[in-house]
């Protein structure tokens, strides 16, 4: 196990380094000098030069990469070019919107997908199964931002149950904040729930074909008891993997939904930063999202290896 752990840790580190280089290079290719952008095209050349020195833009690309990447290791993400505030602080503020939104959406999609997937698998081929699989077909075909617009039309404009967008902040109260995140979370959760339902259903169907289910039936358990005692628990492993992956992607996937609802999350931050050529913010947010995905993968792999020794031997 230790050998496997260090091997995975090494490849984790390597992935993060390569990812950070790729991000840095892509962003550095971006046309437009942040200093010129901030001061406007009519600025004096020496003013621009002074600002470039102040922002550290006059240093070599390698030096800038090293100071950016090195700083991130210690939690120092640098200073925003536009706002002159620490990037780490800006990201932390936005995470208070994006993270609860992702957790909220994930909770909803799990709450929908588990019962729906189990229901469908238990009635394989029946009309209930057909209804659920039909609904998942529809769920993956609906663009979530359009679904979000429809939610706004129905629940905010016509019924006035929710506000159409914006976020009051957690200071006004937990429930007010949660309420503002409800429509976005539903919009985000829908396609995820459809995917998760499919995984739950097919994973459970695989398990129900196993010998130990037949054994359980043979010793006198009803189909329902066999499903709940032996089926669901074993079917959960692939489902948990998908949930882990979905969480990281929900953080990133919220970008468009945040635009629909004018939520001050990471998505809005990255859009603003791109238009203002606040490169360091762009780099840091993307790196954070990639880090989340790579880290979740790493943890899922480790959890698997701890459960199933065969996986350790393979890699």
């Amino acid at each position, binding site marked *: 196990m230790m050998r496997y752990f260090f091997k995975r840790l090494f*490849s984790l580190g390597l*992935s993060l380094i*390569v*990812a950070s280089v*790729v991000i840095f290079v*892509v*962003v550095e*290719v*971006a*046309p437009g000098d942040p200093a010129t952008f901030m001061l406007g095209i009519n600025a004096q050349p020496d003013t621009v030069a002074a600002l470039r020195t102040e922002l550290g833009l006059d240093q070599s690309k390698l030096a800038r990469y090293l100071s950016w990447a090195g700083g991130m290791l210690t939690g120092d993400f640098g200073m925003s070019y536009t706002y002159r505030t620490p990037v780490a602080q800006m990201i932390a503020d936005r995470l208070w919107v994006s993270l609860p939104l992702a957790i909220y959406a994930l909770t909803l999609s799990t709450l929908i997908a588990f019962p729906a997937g189990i229901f469908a698998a238990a009635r394989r081929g029946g009309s209930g199964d057909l209804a659920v699989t039909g609904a998942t*077909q*529809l769920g*993956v*075909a*609906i*663009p979530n*931002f*359009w679904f979000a*617009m*429809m939610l*706004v*039309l129905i629940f905010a*404009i016509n019924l006035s149950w929710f506000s159409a967008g914006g976020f009051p902040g957690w200071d006004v109260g937990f429930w007010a904040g949660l309420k503002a995140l409800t429509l976005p979370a539903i919009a985000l959760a829908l396609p995820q729930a459809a*995917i998760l339902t*499919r995984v739950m259903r097919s994973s459970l169907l695989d398990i129900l074909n196993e010998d130990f289910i037949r054994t359980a039936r043979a010793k006198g358990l009803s189909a329902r008891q066999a499903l709940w005692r032996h089926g669901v628990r074993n079917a959960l492993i692939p489902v948990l993997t998908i949930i882990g992956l979905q969480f*990281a*992607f929900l*953080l*990133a*996937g919220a*970008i*468009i939904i945040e*635009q*629909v609802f004018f939520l001050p999350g990471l998505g809005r931050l*990255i*859009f603003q930063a*791109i*238009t203002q050529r606040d490169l360091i913010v*762009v780099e840091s947010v*993307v790196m954070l*999202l*990639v880090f989340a*995905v*790579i880290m979740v*993968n790493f943890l899922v792999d480790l959890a698997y290896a701890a459960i199933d020794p065969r996986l350790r031997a393979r890699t």
Partner: protein
Amino acid sequence: MSRNLILGGALTGLFLLAAILSFTWTPDSVEAMDIPNRLQPPGAGNLLGTDHFGRDILSMLMVGARTSIAVALVAVGIGMGLGVPLGLAAAARDGGLLDEVIMRMNDLIFAFPSLVIAILITAVFGPSATNAIIAIGVFNIPVFARITRGAALSLWTRDFVLAARVAGKSRTRISAEHILPNVANLLIVQSTIQFSLGILAEAGLSYVGLGAQPPIPSWGRMLADAQTMVALAPHVALIPGLTIVAMVLGLNLLGDGLRDALDPRLKVVRT
């Protein structure tokens, strides 16, 4: 023929026909504005109503279909064109250095949240249909590389491949002549799925203004334009949205139908 195949094929065919037809004929011009006639609900004059400039929505959807299909199709082409050879090469040298490098690169691309990178690429190189194609296409490469490698690996253990090796064929020739034809079914089904994901991605990118630029009509931007009008005239948001749903649903059904018809055991990837 299964119901999925017929329904999916019919829906997909309908959109392809509408897109092709739009080159020679649309019910109305997509550039002519008709302000007094704006936000008209669906009716006799304009079958699907008009938008906030009084343009015919049906005509815009037809021309928009062209953009969506072109972007998604070329993105699938990029994914297949690069991903399949990489997957074949990786499988031909299973466990070798090349295999290792190709698969690690794949893992890396998978680790990037696709939407963020698509936004980054279009933001860095400027929003355009071409950059949307590149952004979407890049993420198709690892998908095709991975499924090709997976399927090819099991083929390499088969007797007919052994026979070809004994006959002295090179690994490259075996990949091209024996492996590729046997993974073709899988690639066809996966292409349909990636095509539908491409349609969704293009709609998302053009919704946030990073896809095809005006005056080229695109479904995503029609929705973005509709957002402020939705309370006044719900149809301007409803109709383009349902169009996207119908197209994606059609492609997914076609993919399922093709899989069942060709080989139900095909290991396709859905993300």
